[in-house]
């Protein structure tokens, strides 16, 4: 007998995860923007070849702030799954980029891999979950259909 999808609705319960990941992006950007030569470390060297240190910090803070705004709107006075999906994709791509560049950098310069590196991969995976949840809410809210009001 079909279970009527009982217990299968955890897919869309990712709001707290999205807040957590948005704050992680904000915190990461804030840390990078501190006045110390973080990007002189070998694991960040390839990242500094792509963008300068403040640019990375500002990018992370921008993504985190816009995501927090989208999530605040979504929970307070209007549901905005499309904004949440865009934020999750942007944030996920940021984690993916950081993880990839740090991995290649440590291999290229024979530096030890930081223990926290795996967090970026985990963040990326959970952003995928958040994107699927946003897709779920997009259908439930008919966000893609045009309605004359």
């Amino acid at each position, binding site marked *: 007998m079909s279970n009527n999808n009982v217990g299968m609705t955890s897919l869309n319960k990712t709001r707290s995860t999205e807040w957590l990941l948005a704050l992680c992006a904000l915190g990461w950007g804030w840390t990078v923007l501190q006045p110390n030569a973080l990007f002189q470390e070998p694991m960040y060297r*390839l990242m500094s*070849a792509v963008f300068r240190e403040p640019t990375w910090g500002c990018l992370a803070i921008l993504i985190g702030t816009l995501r927090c705004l989208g999530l605040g709107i979504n929970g307070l006075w209007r549901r905005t799954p499309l904004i949440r999906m865009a934020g999750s994709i942007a944030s996920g*791509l940021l984690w993916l980029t950081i993880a990839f560049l740090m991995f290649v950098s440590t291999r290229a310069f024979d530096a030890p891999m930081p223990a926290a590196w795996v967090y970026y991969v985990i963040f990326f995976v959970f952003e995928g979950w958040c994107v699927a*949840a*946003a*897709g779920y809410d*997009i259908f439930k809210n008919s966000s893609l259909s045009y309605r*004359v009001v």
Partner: protein
Amino acid sequence: MAPEATDIWSWLLALLGTGSGGAIALAFFGWLKAKAEKPYIAPPTVGPSALGQIGGMVMGQQDLRDLIEAFRAMAASHDRCTLAREAEMEVRKRLAKERREHEVDMADRRHEEWRQSSDLLRTLCDRLRDMKLTT
């Protein structure tokens, strides 16, 4: 830009493109999941008291024919439960559809009224202008 940076950029763009594609696929998965969901109605159950009655019906029978009849009655009761449940789901679906259609109708009507009043205003303005021109 340094050559190694250009190389890294090409790798990064490939990675980001794949990541974005995966993200869209995941969002589509979530969308499909929500689309496949049905309204939840508890599956029919006989409950403990009815189970006792059924036990009495079955145990009180003297021969196989009566026993089969009792089981047939139970099966028919279960079928009725299933039919009622399916009918309820169908009714809910129809109600939701009718409500949606009603909302669209109302919106159309509002739009039509707004258009008519704006037409009226425009005509009025034109007439006024004509009057000014002729006098």
